[in-house]
């Protein structure tokens, strides 16, 4: 399932559409950045409520397929700029991390 498919099915709001055809290979939920970079897998959709610029660095280096900011958290301007600069898919959602992870799991099977 592609980033665009997941975004549509989960009714996400797009902030940066860098590579919608990238395959989403799983998911990871977390806000502690060192934890996330060490445990999120390449290609995972990363669900978080963190919205500072370091989120872009972690997503780029851990090679996650998309960032989903939960609970209507908005990216700060620097995060937005860095996501565009590094070609990262960045979305927001009104639901919480639990609901998003549950629905993502159902989608990915």
């Amino acid at each position, binding site marked *: 399932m592609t980033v665009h498919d997941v975004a549509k099915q989960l009714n996400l709001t797009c902030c940066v559409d860098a590579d919608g055809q990238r395959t989403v290979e799983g998911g990871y939920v977390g*806000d*502690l*950045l*060192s*934890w996330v*970079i*060490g445990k999120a897998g*390449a290609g995972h959709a990363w669900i978080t409520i*963190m919205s*500072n*610029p*370091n*989120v*872009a*660095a*972690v997503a*780029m*280096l*851990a*090679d996650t397929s998309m960032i989903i900011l939960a609970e209507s958290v908005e990216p700060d301007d*620097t995060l937005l700029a860095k996501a565009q600069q*590094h070609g990262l898919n960045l979305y927001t959602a009104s639901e919480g991390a639990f609901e998003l992870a549950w629905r993502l799991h159902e989608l990915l099977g």
Partner: protein
Amino acid sequence: MDKLHLHYEVEGNDFVAAGEAAGQMKRTLRQLGIDFEIIRRCSICMYEGEINMVAHAEGGSADVIIAKDKVTIVLEDTGPGITDMELAMQEGYSTATQDVRELGFGAGMGLPNMKKYADTLAVESTPGVGTKVTMEINIPA
């Protein structure tokens, strides 16, 4: 292939720029056509090292030596050093300040992540003098 040497200076306390060196290294490794999983492991090791220097040591230097069979990352700072190495290597132990924790760091996973993703990790640290971290990530033939 001759060895390729990359050098970066990392600014202390600049969390917005943190990760720039790791990002530049990643782009170079990609241009060299190195395997994605090897690049990911190098990136994680480099980023954790960068964050440690930004958060704890008022910056430092990072050197990356890319050879045919391995990537070597050397991080050096003149910060306060690590007083208890055994504790520092434990998952969950951190001396990060509250400000740093609010940014999402200070989970106590820095050195454990480096150990997990590097093939070799050597930490030389003298309290009051500084710390040198050397990591090697092998590139399978």
